[in-house]
């Protein structure tokens, strides 16, 4: 009962639904009054346009999740804090290597080498789907495998992106702008074994914290996971900068 009440409360809080009903009601009153009483065709057309836009707003409202942004933030923070605690407790300082799903038994993930500056060219072939994994032949080539915001989003893509800059850009724009609404636009360039991405209108700020230094911000993580999946190669976030509302992410393609 409480859940039904809460869901109903969330529905009424949806601004697109309220806007849509407002437009539809205004249009439904305005159009016949303009046509039959005022006898004005342009005003009738405005009424019809209002109904069309109202129906569109109602359609958009139905596609929004029932969970509130506040509850999503709580869940995101919980996951991030647990991951940060694990990384800090293990003293991991090396940058995460994002692996395509073909190297991780069908699930795109990232591995964090236990030893800093390990031999990264050794990351080849299939890596077993466990938490602590060996990625090379040397005894120190050990890492922990974790899921990242980027690796979760790979499953949301309708099809696997191709290895060109335009296909990576399309996939990143689809996830960041269309699905998650985290940014306005994304531009991707491929050069010298690097993926350079520029994110405009980012709604997530980069923070100089251990978690971000290791796995990258959620934005960089998503672009790295998509690049890795598209190129079918392991990648690593080399650099991340934020200046004047733009985020620049440089990703190194390994092996």
């Amino acid at each position, binding site marked *: 009962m409480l859940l039904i009440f809460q869901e109903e409360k969330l529905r009424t809080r949806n601004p*697109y639904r309220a806007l849509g009903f407002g437009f539809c009601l205004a249009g439904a009153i305005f159009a016949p009054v303009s046509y039959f009483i005022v006898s004005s065709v342009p005003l009738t057309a405005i009424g*019809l346009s209002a109904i069309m*836009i109202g129906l569109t707003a109602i359609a958009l409202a139905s596609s929004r999740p029932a969970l509130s942004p506040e509850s999503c933030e709580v869940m995101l923070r919980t996951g991030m804090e647990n991951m940060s605690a694990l990384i800090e407790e293990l003293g991991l300082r090396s940058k995460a290597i994002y692996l395509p799903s073909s190297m991780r038994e069908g699930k795109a993930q990232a591995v964090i080498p236990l030893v800093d500056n390990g031999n990264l060219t050794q990351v080849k072939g299939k890596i077993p789907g466990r938490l602590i994994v060996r990625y090379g032949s040397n005894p120190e080539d050990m890492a922990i495998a974790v899921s990242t915001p980027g690796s979760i989003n790979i499953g949301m893509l309708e099809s696997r992106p191709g290895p060109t800059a335009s296909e990576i850009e399309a996939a990143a724009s689809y996830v960041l702008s269309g699905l998650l609404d985290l940014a306005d636009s994304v531009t991707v360039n491929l050069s010298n074994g690097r993926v350079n991405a520029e994110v405009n209108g980012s709604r997530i700020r980069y923070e100089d914290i251990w978690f971000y230094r290791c796995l990258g911000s959620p934005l960089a993580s998503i672009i790295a996971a998509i690049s890795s999946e598209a190129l079918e190669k392991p990648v690593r976030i080399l650099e991340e900068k934020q200046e004047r509302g733009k985020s620049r992410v440089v990703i190194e393609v390994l092996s």
Partner: protein
Amino acid sequence: MTIFNKYLMTLVLAASMVNIFLAFFKQNSLEIYFVVNILSYLIITLLYVYINPRARAALNAISAILFGGFMVIVIIKVLEIIY
């Protein structure tokens, strides 16, 4: 501004521009207003390719209904010309 807000703002601006433009040229046929509004709606909806799949499905349903209305007007006009 989120993608939904941008999309709605574009629709509102396009509808306003179309209606003002046609009224400026003293167009007095409701069919013309309706058809041009539907065309602008369909073009803008197609241009927003990054809208999420759930919203896209709902918008496709509305587009199909509007396209049906557009076709009805076209067929009526063609029949008027033929007979």
